[in-house]
C-alpha cells in the first residue's frame, strides 16, 4: 500500500498502544494538536488523554517522569519535539535513563522509548536544525536508532519497546513526507543490523537517517560516471553494526561517511576511527567524511544548502577515495 513516513510512524504508535496496555505516548502537543509534525494525529481520539498525554513545556520534567513511569512498570513513549530541545532533558537521559541500571547494580532497568525529530533542511535556522544524535550515541546504556525508510519508521518502535533498556529514535524532519510503498503486513523489524541499501563493489558509503536519500542520489550519479558505490544505512547508531560495515569495506577497500552532524566530533569521526582500527590494512585510501559545515545553521536557503551534505560533495569524496585520497 502507498503510505508516508509520517503515517508509518503513526501506525507503529497505534499498534503499540493497541498491543500493550502499559504503553502510553507523552509529550508536548502529542494530543490535542495532533503532534507538532502531525505524527500522532487522531491518536488522542482513539486512546484518550491518559494514554496520549499532552504535557506542559517542561522537557526535563516530562522526560524524567517517563523514566519514573518506566521504573514503575509502564512502557512510556516520550516525544521530544526536536533534538534541539532535548538538551533541556539531557541530564535526565544521561544521568538517569542511561545510568540507573548499571549504577544500581542491575536492579533498575528503564524501558523507555524517546522519539525526537532531528536535522536541518527546512530553513528553521540555528536553534531548530541540529543533528545531535551522535552525542546520544556516545552514552553507554542507550540504544540509538535512526529510521530512514518506511519499513523502519513502521517497524522499529515495537522492537524498541520490547527492549528492556532506554531506546532513542531519531526521525529526520525532512522524511515525514517521504512517500512510498509499504507491505500491508509490515511490522516489527530488527534494530541491530545496518542495511546495505545499494550493493556495489567500488567504495563503501556509510550514512543514516536524513542523508540516506542524498547518498543514494549520489550513488546514482556515480553509477553514471562508472563508479559502483555500496550504500550502507546504519539504522542503529549505538551500538554500531561493525561486522556489516567492515565486511563491505574489506571488499571495496574504500570508505566515505556521510553525516549531517557538524564534522568535528560527529558520529562520522567514530566511524572513521573504527574502520581504521579494524580494517587499516584493507584500505586503499584514507576514509573521507562529508558532513555539515561547522556553523550554526543559517536560515537563508542558499546558505543552509551550502552548509549541508549534498550530492556533489559526496560524489567528489567518493571520486577522491577512488583515486586513493
Amino acid at each position, binding site marked *: 500500500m502507498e503510505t508516508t513516513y509520517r503515517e508509518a510512524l503513526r501506525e507503529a504508535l497505534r499498534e503499540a498502544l493497541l498491543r500493550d496496555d502499559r504503553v502510553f505516548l507523552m509529550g508536548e502537543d502529542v494530543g490535542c*494538536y495532533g503532534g507538532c509534525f502531525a505524527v500522532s494525529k487522531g491518536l488522542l481520539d482513539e486512546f484518550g488523554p491518559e494514554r496520549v498525554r*499532552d504535557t506542559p513545556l517542561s522537557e526535563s*520534567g516530562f522526560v524524567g517522569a517517563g523514566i519514573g513511569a518506566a521504573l514503575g512498570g509502564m512502557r512510556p513513549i516520550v516525544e521530544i519535539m526536536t533534538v534541539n*530541545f532535548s538538551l533541556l532533558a539531557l541530564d535526565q537521559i544521561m544521568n538517569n535513563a542511561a545510568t540507573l541500571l548499571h549504577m544500581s547494580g542491575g536492579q533498575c532497568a528503564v524501558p523507555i522509548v524517546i522519539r525526537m525529530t532531528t536535522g536541518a533542511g527546512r530553513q*528553521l535556522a540555528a536553534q531548530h536544525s541540529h543533528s545531535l544524535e551522535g552525542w546520544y550515541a556516545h552514552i553507554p546504556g542507550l540504544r540509538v536508532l535512526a529510521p530512514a525508510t518506511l519499513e523502519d519508521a513502521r517497524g522499529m518502535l515495537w522492537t524498541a519497546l520490547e527492549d528492556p533498556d532506554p531506546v532513542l529514535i531519531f526521525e529526520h524532519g525532512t522524511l515525514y513526507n517521504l512517500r512510498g510503498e509499504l507491505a500491508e503486513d509490515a511490522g516489527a523489524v530488527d534494530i541491530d543490523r545496518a542495511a546495505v541499501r545499494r550493493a556495489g563493489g567500488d567504495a563503501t558509503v556509510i550514512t543514516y537517517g536524513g542523508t540516506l536519500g542524498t547518498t543514494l542520489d549520489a550513488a546514482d550519479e556515480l553509477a553514471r560516471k562508472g563508479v559502483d558505490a555500496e550504500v550502507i544505512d546504519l539504522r542503529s547508531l549505538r551500538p554500531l553494526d561493525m561486522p556489516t560495515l567492515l565486511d563491505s569495506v574489506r571488499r571495496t577497500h574504500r570508505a566515505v561517511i556521510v553525516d549531517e552532524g557538524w564534522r568535528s566530533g560527529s558520529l562520522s569521526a567514530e566511524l572513521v576511527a573504527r574502520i581504521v582500527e579494524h580494517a587499516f590494512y584493507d584500505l586503499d585510501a584514507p576514509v573521507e567524511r562529508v558532513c555539515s559545515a561547522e556553523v*550554526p545553521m543559517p*536560515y537563508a536557503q*542558499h546558505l543552509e544548502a551550502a552548509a549541508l551534505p549534498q550530492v556533489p560533495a559526496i560524489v567528489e569524496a567518493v571520486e577522491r577515495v577512488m583515486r586513493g585520497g
Partner: protein
Amino acid sequence: MTSEHELDLLRQMLRIRRFEEKCVELYSASKIRGFLHLYIGEEAVATGVFQALRPDDSVVATYREHGHALARGVPAESIMAEMFGKVTGCSRGRGGSMHLFDAERHFYGGNAIVAGGLPIAVGLALADRMLGRDRVSVCFFGEGAMAEGEFHESVNLAALWRLPVLFVCENNLYAMGTALDRSEAQVDLTVKARSYGIRATAVDGMDVLAVEAAAADAVADVRVGAGPAFLEARTYRFRAHSMYDPELYREKAEVERWKLRDPITLLADRLRARGDLDDEAWAAMEAAIAEEIAGAIAVAEAAPVEAVEDLTRFVTSEV
C-alpha cells in the same frame, strides 16, 4: 493622553498587522520560508510596553517577535529583508523570522528555545546594575514558557538580586495546541510570579492604553531599583500558531469572540467615537503603511543574498 499619542499607537499596531498580513502572502508565495509565527491579535502588548521603555533599555523576545522588532524601531525594510533571507536583513538573512536582531537598538533577538531568552534578560540587567546604568531589561514570553524550569530559575535570580527586569508574559491562552489549564496547575499567572516575592500584575492585553499604563507603572518601579516586575498581558492570537497548524485544539467561535476585542478596532472605535479619527485619516494611515511595506518588500526583493563564501564568517569574531 493626547489623541496624537493614541493615533500613533493605532498606527503602530496597524503597521504590525499589515506587515504580518503581507508576510502571510509572501509565505504562500514562498518568498518567506521556515517557521512563521504571527503576532496578529496581540499587537497591543508590544506596542504598549515599548511606550514605557527608553531606547537604551534592552529587549529579549521570542520567535513571535515581528511586532516587538517593529515597535522597537527596527526598520521594516531590514526585517523584511531578513525574512527574505537577504544579506541586508537585520541578521544578514541568517536568522529569518524567528531570529531578528538589532544590537544597536538593544534588541537581543528573536530566541526560539521557549524560555531560553529569560536568563539572558536577567544577565543584561545584571550588567546594567554592575555598570551603574539605570536601564531596564524587558523580556517577552508566552504563558506556555512559564512551565519551563528556566522561567523559575530566571525569576528567582532576578528577584533574589533585585535586578531591573520586566518580565512580560503574553498570555494568549495557548502554547501551540495546549490550553493554559492543561499546562499550568496554577492558572492565575500573577500568583505564580508573586510567589517569588515580586510585583506582579495582569492587564487587558487587548487595550493598548491599559498595557501602556501598566507597563509604565511597573517600569517606574523597576528602574528605581525595586527589583523585577512581572506583567501578564491577557491577549489572544487570532491566527494559527505557525503556518502549519490545523487549529484542532480550539473552537472557531472562541476565536471569533476574541476578534470582537481586536486591539486595533478597540482603539480605532474609541478614537472615532471621540471624533479623533475619521475615514479619511484612517485611509491615509493605511496608505502610508501600505506604501512603507510595499517599499520594504521591493527593497528586500532587490537585495542581494550573502555570498556563500561568507557562510563561516562570525562563527567566531573577526579580530
